[in-house]
C-alpha cells in the first residue's frame, strides 16, 4: 500500500521530540481549568437551558463563580454546595449561596467528603448514561456496512446551508448517494462565541450553528437513513473554538462519531488564546476518548495560508505534536484522524507525485490512525469543470494511498458552500475513482530513489528540524515565530485568556476524574 522512505530512526527521534514538546506544555495544562471546562462539568450534571436573557445557564453559573473568584475550586463543587441547600434552579441557588456570609469558607471535613462523594456518584451515573449511549451507537454501527468497501476511504461531505432543516434534507440526499460521513459546518465565527447557542437553528452564515439540539436532529435523521440504507452514516461537527469541551460533551451526548479537534487550530486560525486552547483541547479530547469520538486534526489549514509545497513539513511536524497531545489526553491511535490536504498548486509540475509522497508518508507515520485527507481548496477558482478534475486527482491519491477518511472536494469550492448537485457530482466521481483504482496502491511500488521517495525524505528532514527547534525553544516560542500556518501568536494575546483559571489545590471536577480514569 503506502510506502515510507524515511529512516525509522528519524521517525523515532521525531516522536520523542513531539512527546517532549507536549510534556513541557502538559504540566501547565494540568494546573489550569477554563470557563468552558467548568461549564462542561456542569452540563454533565444536567445544567442545561438558557436563562431569561437567552444566555445558557451553564454560562450564568460559571460567570458568577468567576466574578466571585472561586472558580478555581471547580464549578461542580459550588453547584454541589448550592444545591445542598435545596432548590433546583442552579443560577438562583449559586446566587443565594454566594450571597450568604461565609459562603466561601470550607465545610467541615466530613461535609466536604460527603459532598464530593455525592457529586462523584452523580457524575458516575451521568457518565455511565453517556457511555451507554455510545455503546448503543457502536452496536448499531457494528450491524451495518461501513464505507464503500473494505479499504475505501470514508466519503466525507459537508452540509452548510445555515438552516438545520435544509441541512437534514441535504445530508439525507448525500447519504443516499454514498456519503459515509456528514459534517455540518458551523456558522461563520461561532468559534468565537464563548457560549453554545441553544435549540434548533435556521439562520447561520456559511454554516449552521453547532447546538445540542441541531446535533440531535441530525443524528436522528442519519440513524433513520443508515437503517434504511444498511450503511452507517457518520456525523461530525467542529469542537474547536472557545467552547471546545462543551461541544465535545454535546457531541458525545448526541452520539457524534467525529469532531474536528486540533490542539493548535484555535490559536493559529481563530486567534484564541494559546493557553485557553491548550487547556480546552485536553479536556475535550478526554471526552472524545471516553465517547469513542474520532478526532480530526486541522493541519490541512496550514497549507491554505502558507504555500503547500513550502510548508509541507509543518503539517508533518504538527501532526506528531497533535498526536502527542492526544495520547496525553488518553486517546487511542485508532481515534486520531490526522488532517492533511491536497493543496498543491496545480500549475506546478509533478504535483501528483509530490502529493503521493506526502499522502503515503502521513498514512505510514500513523499506521493505526484513520488519516483524514482534505481536497484542494485554495487554488480553485470559479472554473467548476477544472475544479472537478482537480478533485478527482485527490480522490485518486486517497484511494491509492489508503487514506481513512476523505473530505470530498467540491467543484464549486471557490464559489459557495456546497449545493446538492455539487455533492452529487463529488460522490459519484469519488465512488468511481475508488472503484477504478481499488487495488492500484497494492499493485505498484515507487522507486527508492525516485521523485516520490526523495520528496518524502526531504519533507521529513525539514519536519524533524522544526521539531528539534520547537523542542529546544518550546512550543510557545515556535508559535511566536509563525512556524505553523504562517501565523504568529503570543501567550497573552488572543481571545478568551480571561477564561483560563488556575486550579485551586482542592480543585474538584468529578467528570475529569472519570475521564482521567481516576474515579476510584
Amino acid at each position, binding site marked *: 500500500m503506502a510506502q515510507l522512505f524515511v529512516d525509522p530512526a528519524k521517525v523515532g527521534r521525531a516522536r520523542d521530540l513531539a512527546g517532549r514538546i507536549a510534556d513541557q506544555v502538559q504540566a501547565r495544562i494540568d494546573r489550569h481549568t477554563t470557563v468552558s471546562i467548568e461549564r462542561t462539568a456542569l452540563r454533565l450534571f444536567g445544567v442545561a437551558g438558557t436563562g431569561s436573557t437567552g444566555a445558557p445557564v451553564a454560562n450564568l453559573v460559571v460567570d458568577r463563580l468567576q466574578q466571585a473568584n472561586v472558580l478555581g475550586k471547580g464549578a461542580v463543587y459550588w453547584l454541589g454546595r448550592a444545591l445542598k441547600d435545596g432548590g433546583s434552579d442552579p443560577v438562583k441557588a449559586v446566587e443565594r449561596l454566594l450571597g450568604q456570609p461565609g459562603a466561601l469558607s470550607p465545610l467541615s471535613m466530613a461535609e466536604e467528603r460527603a459532598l464530593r462523594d455525592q457529586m462523584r456518584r452523580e457524575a458516575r451515573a451521568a457518565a455511565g448514561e453517556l457511555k451507554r449511549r455510545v455503546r448503543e451507537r457502536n452496536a448499531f454501527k457494528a450491524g451495518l456496512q461501513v464505507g464503500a468497501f473494505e479499504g475505501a476511504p470514508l466519503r466525507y461531505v459537508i452540509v452548510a*446551508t*445555515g438552516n438545520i432543516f*435544509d441541512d437534514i434534507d441535504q445530508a439525507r440526499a448525500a447519504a443516499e448517494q454514498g456519503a459515509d460521513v456528514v459534517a455540518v459546518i458551523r456558522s461563520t465565527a461561532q468559534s468565537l462565541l464563548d457560549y453554545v447557542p441553544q435549540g434548533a437553528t435556521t439562520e447561520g452564515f456559511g454554516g449552521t450553528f453547532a447546538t445540542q439540539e441541531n446535533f440531535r436532529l441530525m443524528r436522528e435523521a442519519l440513524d433513520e437513513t443508515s437503517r434504511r440504507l444498511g450503511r452507517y452514516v457518520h456525523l461530525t461537527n467542529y469542537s474547536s473554538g472557545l467552547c471546545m469541551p462543551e461541544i465535545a460533551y454535546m457531541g458525545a451526548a448526541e452520539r457524534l462519531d467525529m469532531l474536528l479537534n486540533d490542539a493548535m487550530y484555535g490559536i493559529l486560525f481563530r486567534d484564541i488564546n494559546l493557553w485557553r486552547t491548550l487547556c480546552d483541547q485536553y479536556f475535550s479530547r478526554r471526552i472524545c476518548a471516553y465517547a469513542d469520538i474520532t478526532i480530526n486534526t486541522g493541519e490541512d489549514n496550514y497549507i491554505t495560508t502558507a504555500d503547500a509545497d513550502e510548508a509541507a513539513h509543518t503539517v508533518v511536524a504538527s501532526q506528531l505534536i497533535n498526536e502527542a497531545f492526544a495520547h496525553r489526553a488518553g486517546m487511542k491511535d485508532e481515534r486520531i484522524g490526522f488532517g492533511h490536504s491536497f493543496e498543491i498548486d496545480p500549475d506546478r509540475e509533478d504535483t501528483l507525485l509530490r502529493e503521493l509522497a506526502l499522502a503515503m508518508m502521513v498514512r505510514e507515520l500513523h499506521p493505526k490512525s484513520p488519516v483524514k485527507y482534505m481536497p484542494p481548496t485554495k487554488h480553485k*477558482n*470559479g472554473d*467548476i469543470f477544472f475544479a472537478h478534475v482537480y478533485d478527482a486527482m485527490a480522490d485518486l491519491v486517497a484511494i491509492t494511498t489508503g487514506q481513512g477518511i476523505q473530505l470530498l472536494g467540491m467543484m*464549486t469550492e471557490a464559489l*459557495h*458552500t456546497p449545493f*446538492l448537485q455539487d455533492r452529487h457530482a463529488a460522490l459519484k466521481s469519488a465512488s468511481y475513482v475508488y472503484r477504478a483504482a481499488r487495488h492500484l496502491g497494492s499493485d505498484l511500488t515507487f522507486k527508492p530513489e525516485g521523485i516520490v521517495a526523495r520528496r518524502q525524505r526531504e519533507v521529513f528532514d525539514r519536519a524533524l528540524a522544526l521539531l528539534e527547534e520547537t523542542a529546544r525553544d518550546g512550543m510557545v516560542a515556535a508559535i511566536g515565530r509563525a512556524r505553523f500556518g504562517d501565523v504568529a501568536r503570543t501567550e497573552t494575546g488572543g481571545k478568551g485568556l480571561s477564561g483560563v483559571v488556575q486550579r485551586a489545590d482542592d480543585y474538584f471536577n468529578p467528570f475529569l476524574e472519570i475521564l482521567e480514569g481516576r474515579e476510584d
Partner: protein
Amino acid sequence: MNLIRPYGDRRDDGLVQLAFTLPVPAGAKAKEAASQLVKKMGFKSVLVASMEPAGERFSVFVCYGRGDFALDFDRVEAPEVKHPKHGFDALNARIAERLGRPIVVVGACIGSDAHTTGIDAIFNMKGYAGDYGLERYPWFRAVNLGAQVEPAVLVAKAKELNADAILVSQIVTQRDIHKENVRALIEILKGEDLWGKAILVFGGPRIDHKQALDLGFDAGFGPGTRPSDVANYVYYRLCEKLGLPEE
C-alpha cells in the same frame, strides 16, 4: 398545487448553473456581456463564476443565477408507455395463446446514420444489459436491416413481411437530421396500406416518448431501453390495435 423550483443551497432558492461561449475575447466587457445575457434569460443575482479565454477570440463562462422559474409539478404531464411487463417465457406464452402467430417486426437505423449498436441492442440474440433481443423470442419474427437504410427500403421490407411493427433507430441528431429522416419515413408510409396498421416505434439516446408521439409514432424509447420493454410494448399495443379484450 405543488410548486417546484431549482434548489441550490436552500429550498426554492432558484439557483441554476449555466455555461456557454461568447465570440469575444476575455475581458471586463466580455464578463459584463455574459452577466447581461444571463440576466436576459431571466436570472437575478447573477455571478459570473469564471471567464476563461478559449483562444484569442472566444471566452467560456460559468455562471450562476437565481431564477424565479416555478412549475406546478402536479400539472406536469409526461406521457409514459404503460402496460404490464412479462418475462421472456411468459410473454412468448401469451403471444402463442392470444395471437396464435408470431409478431412480425422490422427495424433499421435509417438515413446516413451508421450506428448499429442501438438497434442491435434491441434485436440481436444476445441482447442488451442481460436481456435477450427480439431475435431470440420464438414468438417474434424479428428482422433487423441494420444501419444506413433508406426509409423507402425499410418500408418496402415492412410491406413484404406485412410487419406488425416498424422499429426505427436514430443516433445522429446534429441539426435535427433525425427528424428529417423520420418525417421522410412517415411521408412514404402515408401512401401505404401499412399506415395506421403497423405500430411505429422510434428509439435512440436522444429520443423520448413524448417527442416520438409528436413526430407521429406510437411510442418512443430512450437511453437504457431493454429489448423486453419493446417486446412487451409491441405485444400490448398490437392487442389494442386488434381490439383484443384486456386480460
